[in-house]
């Protein structure tokens, strides 16, 4: 069997259910692949891992991948299982935020580590300064949990529909106590989890062939997970070596993730790519530029999906 190593962007959870399902269900094996899934974590930049040769293929957000590309690491999108994005900014109603116009003077929690580009693009689009000045917003580097909102240390925090948003609800705050902004709805949505490889590797036909089989099996996994969310969640919980994940939460997550993967057969829609690029370029934020110029043709390819999905 051919060996493939996949580096995830974050810890083992239903966000990556498709891959775990494909592994557990033997879809990879059917394609004669021996796949190793490396969970991520704080401090793990998948882009850096693939550059160091620690992985053959990674999942990451498109903005981060394009940023890496502009910094000289030629990443290529070979598949896009997530059709839409789950990134949101959620605010406590009692803080008085009702629309983006209310942001100035507020404290907003933001994820960094390559996840901050959508936020800065949005603020640039709104024309709200982020340097903590009078009419701007106060930005907090938010860690991994939703405590800042519960503790009222921030007026709004970043959440994923499939994870932190559920945690906020679980903590006992009802939906009508919240005001939530979806980045897609605000017109600054960007492509989230896609599969990326190094450009030079793709030139090797053998590697390309491996990727074809990998994407085919992965998408099979994703579709299986969408149809069997409870089983998928169970597989994820079983695959989690920390033993800390709860089935309930993973089932919730799987349900929400399924909404994001639903529209994708795995092939990147060039329009989505262009839209992400356009958003990034339309709102180049001076201190946080993801990209400053068109990434060019090489940033994505249908070569793999075309073959995998025919």
């Amino acid at each position: 069997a051919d060996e493939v190593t996949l580096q995830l962007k974050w810890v083992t959870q239903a966000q990556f259910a498709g891959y775990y399902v494909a592994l557990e269900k033997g879809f990879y094996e059917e394609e004669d692949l021996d796949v190793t899934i490396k969970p991520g974590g704080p401090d793990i930049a998948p882009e850096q891992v693939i550059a160091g040769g620690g992985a053959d293929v990674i999942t990451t957000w498109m903005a981060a991948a394009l940023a890496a590309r502009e910094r000289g690491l030629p990443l290529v999108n070979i598949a896009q299982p997530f059709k839409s994005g789950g990134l949101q900014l959620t605010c406590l109603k009692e803080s008085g935020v009702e629309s983006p116009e209310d942001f100035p003077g507020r404290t907003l929690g933001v994820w960094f580590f390559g996840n901050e580009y959508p936020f800065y693009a949005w603020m640039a689009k709104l024309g709200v300064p982020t340097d903590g000045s009078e009419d701007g917003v106060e930005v907090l580097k938010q860690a991994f949990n939703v405590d800042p909102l519960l503790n009222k240390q921030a007026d709004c925090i970043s959440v994923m529909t499939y994870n932190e948003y559920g945690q906020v609800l679980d903590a006992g705050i009802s939906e009508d106590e919240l005001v939530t902004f979806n980045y897609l709805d605000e017109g600054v949505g960007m492509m989230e989890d896609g599969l990326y490889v190094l450009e030079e590797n793709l030139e090797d036909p053998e590697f390309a062939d491996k990727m074809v089989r990998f994407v085919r099996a992965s998408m099979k996994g994703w579709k299986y997970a969408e149809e069997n969310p409870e089983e998928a969640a169970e597989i994820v919980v079983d695959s989690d070596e920390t033993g800390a994940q709860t089935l309930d939460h993973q089932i919730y997550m799987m349900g929400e993730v399924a909404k994001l993967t639903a529209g994708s057969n795995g092939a990147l829609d060039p329009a989505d790519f262009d839209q992400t690029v356009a958003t990034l370029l339309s709102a180049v934020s001076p201190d946080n530029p993801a990209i400053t110029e068109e990434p060019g043709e090489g940033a994505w390819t249908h070569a793999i999906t075309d073959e995998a999905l025919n």
Partner: protein
Amino acid sequence: MDSVILALVVWAAGTFVAVQISRSPGHDTLPARIAVPVVFGIMLLVMWELLVKGLNVSQVILPAPSVIAATFARSTPTLWGDFLQTALKGGVSGYLIGCSAAFVAALAIDRVPFLQRGLLPIGNFVAALPIVGIAPILVGWFGFDWQSKAAVVVVMVFFPMLVNTVQGLADTTAMQRDLMKTYSAGYWQSLFKLRLPAAMPFIFNGLKISTTLALIGAIVAEYFGSPTRGMGFRISTEVGRLGLDMVWAEITVAAIAGSVFYGLVALIERGVTFWHPSQRS
């Protein structure tokens, strides 16, 4: 390959120079004591530069020193701001609070042997608590700004400082204590005239250990939430953006700040404990 050979040559040359200086008659002078590590450091940097360039190591894995230096020069305002936020506001304030609290606690404990026997063993456990576990909790309690970083630093430096101070206060010889007894000296008299001076080498040991802990603590705490400035914030953010040159520029700041901080305390130590055999070479 050439650059690997060149690196080896640099290594040989650097070693030779360092050995020559340290064997020279003036090896005990201050310039020599500075020159040797500097030569050693420069040698490492040159080898690093050569190897990274020669072996085509990706800049997103390990940038060359020249690139780091350029970034450092270009970003001094940012670096300075981060330094103020983390090292001065978080680190130094936490250091001062933590060390003085530990000092006062040591004096209190010292009067009550029961407390000493109960608290010190527990101190060993607490000292082994990983900051990565404590930091998120303290950020939750004290907020995102430097106060929570200072709190992490306080927790980190408290026990090393406490243990050293308590140990130091006990480090008098029987004869020195007997002398105080024959004078029928009171508690405070023997504290100020005997036990505190005798404890100084230990206290400074604690203070020195705490300098590096303070800086590291303040930086790590920023991983668990921070404003958009600070050395830890910059490092964690830039790793995610593959800005490894900036990461190393911050590491350089940390190394310089840490060494200066340590050196400063060591300098004060030299002045205060000039009488101790370890300070008389």
